[in-house]
């Protein structure tokens, strides 16, 4: 009887420990896929809001969102032909992001930026600064960097920045209460 109880106890203990290990924490894991100004703004508003609510936030930048984190002040010599082409065709930094709708060749974006400034809405570069201040972690997809020919030297100086792959995102997402794809 006694050994039966202790065996059951051990089994329960192991199950509780397992549950605790796999418990979702007060974290937000977000995939930022889009390089559109409006979607990127939404990403940063949610991320900074989550940080304000005490959540640990990680943003994974992949594909079209990758060039948002380029630093326009940094030169990148020594790229191959495709890398140079991608570099020239994609926005160089968050300030160059365009609206997904009503862009009208950039006029719509200019108008929206003016409207945002008049209504005191933070710009995308300001939101990135705020994210850094709030300790939001940023992860850049290595494969996107490679594919588009971006170099690490041309990315922004961000305090908590790293380069990673899909497994890192999934590991974070599994332990996060909130996961988003924008």
């Amino acid at each position: 009887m006694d050994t039966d109880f202790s065996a059951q106890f051990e089994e329960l203990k192991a199950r509780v420990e397992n549950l605790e290990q796999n418990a979702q924490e007060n974290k937000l894991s977000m995939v930022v896929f889009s390089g559109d100004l409006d979607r990127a703004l939404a990403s940063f508003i949610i991320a900074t809001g989550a940080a304000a609510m005490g959540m640990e936030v990680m943003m994974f930048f992949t594909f079209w969102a990758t060039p948002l984190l380029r630093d326009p002040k940094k030169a990148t010599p020594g790229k191959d032909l495709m890398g140079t082409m991608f570099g020239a065709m994609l926005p160089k930094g968050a300030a160059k992001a365009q609206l997904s709708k009503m862009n009208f060749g950039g006029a719509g974006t200019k108008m929206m930026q003016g409207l945002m400034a008049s209504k005191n809405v933070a710009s995308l570069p300001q939101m990135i600064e705020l994210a850094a201040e709030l300790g939001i972690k940023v992860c850049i997809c290595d494969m996107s960097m490679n594919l588009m020919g971006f170099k690490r030297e041309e990315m922004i100086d961000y305090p908590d920045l790293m380069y990673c792959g899909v497994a890192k995102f999934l590991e974070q997402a599994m332990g996060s209460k909130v996961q988003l794809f924008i």
Partner: protein
Amino acid sequence: MSTIAYAKELDLRNLPCPMPVVKISKGIKEVAVGEVVKAITTDPGALTDFPAWAKTSGHQILETETTGTEVNFYIKRLK
């Protein structure tokens, strides 16, 4: 007008989302546990955002006071 005593006043007028919650989350840390922050907001979203923020971050809204277009929150730091 509320008679609640507060240790700090935060002027969050004309700040749109997400700034009011970002600033209150910083501001609350500048008073001691048990003390009260008065936050003055004009963002209509704050009416729902502040209770949601308080609930998840574990602080208490003692009173919500609406004066014209302004909403004042009296928030007690609980931890």
